[in-house]
């Protein structure tokens, strides 16, 4: 029998298996914590930070990413607080300009924007980013690597230049018959822009320059 760990999430006693994360424990107890870069088939990544929660132990409160923080006995978790709500609101406002398509956003990000009262246009004119419709959550990259073994998608660039690219030599072999990334992409960018076939609109230069 595996050892069960008792912790408290939003005032509710929750039992979790050792090695589980706060997010898994919370979901097991029907407590919602929002995520954008989490996928149950993938290793936790910790990029979107929307799952930030307050974790208290020994009187010390830390903001941690629920998707990666392992459960501990006696841990007190608060999934909502004025500070957490503020963090989530600002994260949505910061990332929304990237996700923009036809002047709006869709899917989970849209739902979260409404829930946290985020003004998705707040920084849009200031940031002047190209609305690539990609929030760099890395779900496609990691799904392709970890689940499909395709290794056809990756990141290029660093800092604010970071972007997702398809590696043409791998993509030309794996992608035509796969298309699994269409489903995991939270903004629908990949499906919308690849035409559903073997990327006929794109040349190698397009792949490398990150237009994909």
């Amino acid at each position, binding site marked *: 029998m595996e050892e069960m760990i008792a912790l408290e999430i939003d005032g509710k006693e929750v039992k979790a298996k050792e090695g589980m994360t706060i997010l898994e424990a919370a979901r097991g107890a029907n407590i919602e914590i929002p995520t954008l870069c989490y996928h149950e088939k993938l290793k936790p990544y*910790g990029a*979107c930070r929307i799952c930030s929660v307050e974790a208290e132990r020994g009187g010390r409160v830390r903001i941690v990413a629920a998707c990666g923080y*392992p459960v501990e006995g006696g841990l007190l978790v608060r999934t909502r607080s004025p500070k957490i709500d503020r963090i989530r609101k600002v994260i949505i406002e*910061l990332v929304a300009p990237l996700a923009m398509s036809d002047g709006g956003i869709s899917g989970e990000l849209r739902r979260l924007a409404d829930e946290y009262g985020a003004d998705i246009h707040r920084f849009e004119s200031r940031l002047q980013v190209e609305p690539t419709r990609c929030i*760099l959550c890395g779900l496609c990259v990691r799904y392709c690597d970890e689940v499909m073994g395709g290794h056809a998608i990756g990141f290029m*660039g*660093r*800092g*604010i230049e970071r972007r997702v690219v398809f590696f043409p030599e791998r993509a030309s072999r794996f992608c035509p018959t796969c298309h699994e990334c269409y489903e995991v992409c939270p903004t629908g960018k990949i499906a919308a822009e690849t035409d559903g076939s073997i990327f006929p609109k794109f040349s190698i230069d397009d792949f490398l320059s990150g237009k994909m």
Partner: protein
Amino acid sequence: MPKKLFSLEELEELRKEILSKREPDKPVITVCTGTGCQTYGATNVYETFLQEVKNQGLEDKLGVKATGCHGFCEKGVVVVVFPEEISYLKVKPEDVPEVVRAVAKKGILERLLYEDPVTGKKIAKESEIPFYKNQSRIVFGNNKYIDPKNIEDYIALGGYSALSKALSQMSSDQVLEEIDKANLRGRGGGGFPASRKWKETKNAPGEPKYVIVNCDEGDPGAYMDRSLMEGNPHSVLEGLIIGAYAIGAHEGFIYVRQEYPLACENLNWAIKQAEEYGFLGENILGSGFNFRVKVHRGAGAFVSGESSALMSAVEGKAGEPRFKYIHTAVSGVKGRPSNLNNVETWATVPLIINKGADWFRSIGTEGSKGTKIFSLVGKVNNTGLVEVPMGMTLRQVIYDIGGGILKGKRFKAVQTGGPSGGVIPEQYLDTPVDFDELTKLGSMMGSGGMVVMDEDTCMVDVARYFVNFLCEESCGKCIPCREGLRLLRVILNDVCQGKGKEGDIEVIEEVAEVMAAASLCALGTTAANPVLSTLRYFRDEYEAHIKEKRCPAKFCKDLTSFYIQPEKCQACLICLRNCPAGAINGDKGLVHWIAQEKCSKCGICFEVCPPRFSAVVKLSGEPIPEPPPPGTKVIRKKEG
């Protein structure tokens, strides 16, 4: 091939043999060949010395040696003649014959000595130069005696005696206790107690365990680790091997950043020699302890200095941080317990083992023991690497060692801790240098960058500089850091260009709070520090930029204009001729004036206007007076 050493006794035997072959009275000309001096042509100077000694037929009487960095980089090429330790500065190849002649005659070449800028007095002995005199160089000081490519130089100075002591006379727990008792705190930035990490790795389940050297120093203006690794690589290696023994690790990595080719070269030499002598490999010094080390060259990413990112890089993955809720000390490289310390921390370990924790604790403050190496740069007279006991005040470092502010300007702030740190203004100049004291001021010790700023430095621009740096150097993985920096950059650019809006400061603070609370790694959580600390101490400068469209330091180009005061202009034509934009009008005898619409604000007119006229001034936030009517004649100043 040297004989492999199998015991403490054999090492001491070898040391005696090396020393017996040395002639302590024979003059030796040493040339600093660290990267700083190399940029001034040190390699050429060194080779010229070799040739010149030959030419003058003095090969038997004079030695010539290449050494590591002395720290007074601004005065390179640094040449020191032993045994008297006469310091010659800014030595050029053409000076070499004269120096050699002087050394042969046991004389001193006055003209290349250090000259005190105040008294004009020449100082011959290196240790008496104020820059060196006020330092305590316990970690860095051996650089000047050592040819980094020659292990015998290190052994002659007592090298590897700490290792042999640890292996032959101390248990691994005793070594750990000694480091614990010394309260050695990590020199890489955070100041985390080294022994706590060591213990955590030692006690963590899982084999193999790894020990790692972080030589990914990347803070703008900082190069302490480079100089130590280039100049005294064996001290780092010795510390690492001792640490490995204490922890029970048999494999180590040394992560050296791509931009440090000489550090890599000297380190690889050192590893090879250490293997030959039996300090690395199987059965080290006959103790039965085995340890091997690999050099991992970085791919040029600042973020790889973060421990989990560095470990990803060592695994061959992209250098991106990952969760550290389980410490890297427990689950690091390949999920194994991995202890990481920076170059300076490792290099301090042999000293503690040799001289004892009590000796180490006698230096420094209550919470911060020992010394710290800083790279003192910016608007200060003596720039270079300085090693001072913890607890020395910022004022002592900047004025006593650094010789005060360039051109007699007024001190404004000192930036410590690099892109994770902050600025410390004048009213805190008497703060002791100490991990906790600097943190209290909203900055941090960091790895030891110390950038001095004077009255002409715009603090909003400083914040902008660091945010720009981080925009390019952040990994870009998590949203708060990446997008937060992107937004901060836009806002700070706007503020510097006079396009800042009311409410911008509040937006900066709101976003900075989210970055600090929710970013993935320590670089992200501290990325807003340069902005927050300049806001904390210089909020009025932000407000002046935003509300009055005025840059108080008269630095931001878009908010500053150049103006020639007609009553002071002597029509010397110097600015007019030097203006690259052709914006200056006037003629011989006629007052000059700047056509503002043509001015590119390069500041050359301001620089070249003779100080006795000082006719060109900078204006910010005030209207520019109309130019004088065409043909206005000069009002001659009475000479004398």
